[in-house]
């Protein structure tokens, strides 16, 4: 009886998922393995995906670099947050969340205004006779855009995990002879692993399929897999190829997160994502 009730309660979401996730997914799958002219089963698109391998590699590279930078920036912040008084914690939490209240598109466009050749940064540098520097349309600008947009997604899970670490474990480590550096890498860091994995996943998954950031901040040399997919659907009018590429990307993301979780559950005995 109870079980039936809970199914009933989750019915709206189940229907939603069915209509807007599962069915479209099937459509993508269908397009990926059919010939557009005859409508017959065909693996040609999947075979032709080889030409996108460099783009795929570049996408993964950019995303890993972004996730790593997010981690390096985010971890100290999260650690600092977790060790403040509850009131300060709440305020810092709000601050971290604040950029997320602004539209993603707007935030990215703002970087264009900052970085472009006649942008604010170059204008400012010009006052000192420097530049204009080539800031926009570089790989650095793309990574910057990714880090800026997805940093909160790294900080929040890290903060949650670190603030849950029992303070007595830190005292126990000190008691057993650890100075603060040893305490960090022997106890605090291993216990942060679930948060790190969760944060890396939260940054990696959306960045690997992003297309807007690279279009606005990147150049033709920084085209990412998301851009290619968008182009295939819109400009190139080749939904079959786009579907095939989407499918491969999705499988790839699944495999990546799966590997990370497997690694995490071996370390920790728990899965967090």
């Amino acid at each position, binding site marked *: 009886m109870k079980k039936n009730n809970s199914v009933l309660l989750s019915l709206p979401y189940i229907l939603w998922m069915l209509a807007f996730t599962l069915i479209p997914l099937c459509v993508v799958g269908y397009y990926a393995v059919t010939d557009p002219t005859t409508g017959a089963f065909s693996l040609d698109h999947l075979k032709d995906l080889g030409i996108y391998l460099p783009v795929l590699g570049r996408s993964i590279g950019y995303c890993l670099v972004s996730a790593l930078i997010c981690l390096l920036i985010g971890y100290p912040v999260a650690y600092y947050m977790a060790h403040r008084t509850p009131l300060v914690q709440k305020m810092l939490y709000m601050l971290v969340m604040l950029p997320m209240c602004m539209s993603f598109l707007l935030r990215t466009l703002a970087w264009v205004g900052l970085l472009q050749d006649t942008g604010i940064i170059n204008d400012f540098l010009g006052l000192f006779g420097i530049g204009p520097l080539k800031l926009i349309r570089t790989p650095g600008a793309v990574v910057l855009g990714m880090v800026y947009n997805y940093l909160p997604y790294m900080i929040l899970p890290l903060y949650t995990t670190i603030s849950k670490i029992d303070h007595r474990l830190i005292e*126990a*480590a000190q*008691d*057993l002879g650890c*100075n603060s550096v040893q305490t960090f890498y022997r106890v605090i860091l*291993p216990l942060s692993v679930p948060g790190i994995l969760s944060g890396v996943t939260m940054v990696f998954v959306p960045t690997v399929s992003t297309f807007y950031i690279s279009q606005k901040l990147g150049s033709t040399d920084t085209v990412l897999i998301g851009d290619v997919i968008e182009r295939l659907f819109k400009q190139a009018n080749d939904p079959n190829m786009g579907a095939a590429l989407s499918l491969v990307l999705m499988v790839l993301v699944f495999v990546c997160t799966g590997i990370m979780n497997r690694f995490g559950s071996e370390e920790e*005995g728990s899965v967090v994502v």
Partner: protein
Amino acid sequence: MSKELIRLRGLTMEFDGERILDGIDLYINDHEFLTLLGPSGCGKTTTLRIIGGFLTPTSGTVTFDGEVINDVPPYKRQINTVFQRYALFPHLNVFDNIAFGLRVAKVPKEEVDRRVERMLEIVSLKGYGHRAVGALSGGQQQRVAIARALVNEPKVLLLDEPLGALDLRLRKDMQNELKRIQQATGITFIYVTHDQEEALSMSDTVVVMDKGRIQQIGRPEDIYNEPKNAFVADFIGESNILDGIMLSDYRVKFFGRAFECVDKGFAENEPVDVVIRPEDIDIVAPEEGHLVGTVTSVTFKGLNYDIIVEFKGFKWLIQTTDFHGVGATIGIRLNPEDIHIMHKSEYSGLFGDYSSYSAEYDELTEDAGDEEE
């Protein structure tokens, strides 16, 4: 044998203007099993944490082996701690938890293996090395925590209510185990508990604390038999505490009657607290008794009956193996050695009256008093 190892001089501790410790003076000998005993909030855990180096006292000094160690951080002290509820590292298995301190100290691998294996044997966990600590029972986790501290062969082991989370039977076993380990290793144990029975049965020396002050220091027998004030008398076992007047050496008057006692050295006619332990009272026929009273309640306790007897409006607790029903009139006799005389203190009049006695209430308060940070 009894070389002084640790000395606390005039320790005070204040948090947000609240005085937690108020002038603690105490020395601890090498190889000693010393227990800090008191109700929650008495300052016993704070004292332990100061010795461990996790707190710096507001004033006063901690001396270890002749050196002041106030500012020595925990990781540089030859002291290890068994924490309240263990604080085992959840990301490490049993073996790695125990090996933790040795690895930090860069002990060679073969020696780590040898010492951890030996430790596993000592705490009866042989073969458990590869288990996850989360999969162990409370008693097993407790033993891992003890092994993790002991394997470093510290000079002093601090134990903060280590048995608090265990059930009664396991607690008794672990008490024996701890006592055995302490005697086998010769390591100085400083043990914190609010359980008076635990303190009496394990310790060489018991330090009774309340309100941030030491109330009494002594061997368990002395603390029990010669409590210094009403607080100690009440906290260590059950006590009937009455107002009395010391007539002269060896003579005390209470309930309008003079009794012979074994205490001396009080001023003439000094008002005193008189302690009579419930198990020391002999029940006799009414006509033979020093005092005659009426039974008002009877509780069966297994070993004995707890009976409440009213004497002239004042209720006493008496423990007896013979049944006396409610309403029965009984007489009691008091031998000189059953009467303990104490100077009046700030605690006089607060304890030792069983007028509102309730067995249930007693158990409730016992359970409540275990949390202290």
